């Protein structure tokens, strides 16, 4: 039987949660997207609606995964009530003096993967390229979107602006290349070399192929844009070094299919986001949290 506060806990959790989702959806749908190169507006609209649905799926999937954690021993009350209390504690922690220490732990163990480095340099580098590439791409995406659509920062918008050349063109290609290199090593290791410790089941294959297809698709799309002379892909193209390399082997006529390819790439990227909570990729979220909580608990035990 649900406990006394069950409905109250639920409304306290779900009302702000879905409120936040609505705000995110509104932001996604209402941004001007003046610098998006797709020519057919219907494609853009379709992509945006897909993105909203996928982001919502990501958040709901993540919420339900976290609610499973909250069924466990060590806390009291309904799972929703527990989550609210834990969230409160986490926020207090973020604003406490221990944040710097926690960030150090996060960078050392969750991002830099200190322990893996000592055991296998190849796997460490492979994982660092994928994870580092993904993390920087996410940050770059936020910075670029904010600069373009909120600040309307001229050097980010104009064809020869420093920010356009170094962040939008070179920056994205660099982090994309990092991911592509890491994913290539992972794919060769998993599908060709097959070392004893690797066990490939559908979720493993799906995650790696999905990521690979999205990253590679981005470069193919850029190559099509440059080869086909699509606006935004005509000047200083060598800054997008990998896209430019792809354009050299792409026929000019590929530009005719640019919009369709753009949509495919966009929808796949959105689906990848939705897929995260239901796949092994969820460890991107769970592992840093587990590392931080473990570290926090051990410091509490030591009385620090």
């Amino acid at each position: 039987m649900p406990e006394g506060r069950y409905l109250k806990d639920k409304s306290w959790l779900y009302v702000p949660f879905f409120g936040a989702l609505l705000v995110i959806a509104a932001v996604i749908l209402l941004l001007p997207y003046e610098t998006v190169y797709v020519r057919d507006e219907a494609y853009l609209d379709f992509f945006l609606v897909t993105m909203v649905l996928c982001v919502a799926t990501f958040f709901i999937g993540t919420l339900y995964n976290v609610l499973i954690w909250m069924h466990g021993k060590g806390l009291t009350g309904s799972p929703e009530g527990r989550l609210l209390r834990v969230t409160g504690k986490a926020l207090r922690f973020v604003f406490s003096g221990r944040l710097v220490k926690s960030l150090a732990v996060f960078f050392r163990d969750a991002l830099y993967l200190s322990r893996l480095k000592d055991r296998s340099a190849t796997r460490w580098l492979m994982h660092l390229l994928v994870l580092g590439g993904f993390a920087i791409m996410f940050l770059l995406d936020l910075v670029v979107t904010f600069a373009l659509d909120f600040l309307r920062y001229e050097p980010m918008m104009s064809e020869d602006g420093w920010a356009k050349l170094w962040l939008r063109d070179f920056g994205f290609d660099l982090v994309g290349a990092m991911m592509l290199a890491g994913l290539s090593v992972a794919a060769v290791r998993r599908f060709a070399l097959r070392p004893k410790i690797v066990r490939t089941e559908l979720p493993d294959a799906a995650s790696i192929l999905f990521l690979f297809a999205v990253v590679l698709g981005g470069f193919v799309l850029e190559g099509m844009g440059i080869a086909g002379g699509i606006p935004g892909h005509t000047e200083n193209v060598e800054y997008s070094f990998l896209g430019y390399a792809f354009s050299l082997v792409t026929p000019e006529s590929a530009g005719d299919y640019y919009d369709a390819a753009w949509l495919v790439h966009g929808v796949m990227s959105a689906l990848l986001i939705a897929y995260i909570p239901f796949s092994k990729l969820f460890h991107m979220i769970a592992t840093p949290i587990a590392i931080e909580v473990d570290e926090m608990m051990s410091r509490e035990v030591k009385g620090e």
Partner: protein
Amino acid sequence: MKKLDISKLDVLALMRYDACTRCGECTTTCPTGGEAQEVELVTPRGKILRLREFYKSQYGLRARLLGPKEVPEADLKDLASRAYECTICGQCKTVCPAHLDTIEMWENMREFLVENKLAPLPAHESIIKSIENYDNPWMQPRTQRSRWARKIEKDAGIKDALKEQVEVLYFVGCTAAYDPNIRDMAVNTAKVLGKAGVDFGTLGNDEGCCGSTLLRTGLVESARKTALRNIERFEKASPSVIVTSCAGCYKTIRQDYPRIGKVDAKVVHITQLVSEMIVSGKIKPGKGVEGKVTFHDPCHLGRHNKLYEEPRKILESIPGLELVEMERNREEARCCGAGGGVKTAFPDLAQRISALRVEDAERSGADILTTSCPFCYQSLKATIEAKGSRLRMMDIMELVAAST
């Protein structure tokens, strides 16, 4: 339909199940799932993925939308049995790139299995009943617990800690107290303490099982009762220090008891105490003990408690002894195969793991294999004898006693 109750899985454990990256780093060094037999379900990754699959099918988003899925009883029983093939050695914790505290996870997984009526295994039941009824896992009467001390009681100056105030309480542990082949471990420990002039005593026949076996097999409630009885006796004896010669008792009293009740005394392992006394000059190893010795790090002492250097300092202080290391030592040390209830339920598997460790020792060039845990001692000694190895198994206190 079997509805799984996940309320006995720790919040942290549930988080850690999702944090597993499926990388497989744990599978090669796992003594039970990777080295002695290649069974994925026994490996840490195998157990995590299977259990996660089971509970997600009943608690995940899909289960909320479309209803929970039935988990076949046979699959659950298979997982339960495989989960008990783990020695909880903690090698996986050492290698996990995601820093998962797997030791806590496996113990908690067993608690969950017991709660869901999938465990304990039939092989463990007699031990559990024995602890609950006789206060020891060997079905021996309580009145025989202090028998080991009869011949040396006066010489070593062993006091009854419940009748006289003592500074140090020696917690003997069931295996050293009852097993005639291990009894010398308790005798030598008492001799060493006596020679050093330590004011010490034991709980005699009132000492109860520490509860380690119960905790490692997932019977947390039963272990709690056992622990509380001992804590009550500790309070009555009120020593400053509790010393154990058993690595399992040490882990249990030091790490698990504080979660159950208050232990005021400082809890140390005999190797810590003796090492300190060698440094302070209270113990002076003088007589030579000739030979090449290698030390096997018990999991409960090493990986579980990070106690690696004290035993080595003791061995290095004994004249004539040359300490050589096995290739896998300290954090990377192989398990002896006896822990986690494996020796009781899967003796063949335990022996296969133990044989790997004896081979490690043979390769080191040592002629003496020593350790500081009665279970490791028992397991490795049996394998040395079965293999006809040239190695001589000795408890570390036997070496100290021979040198002082």
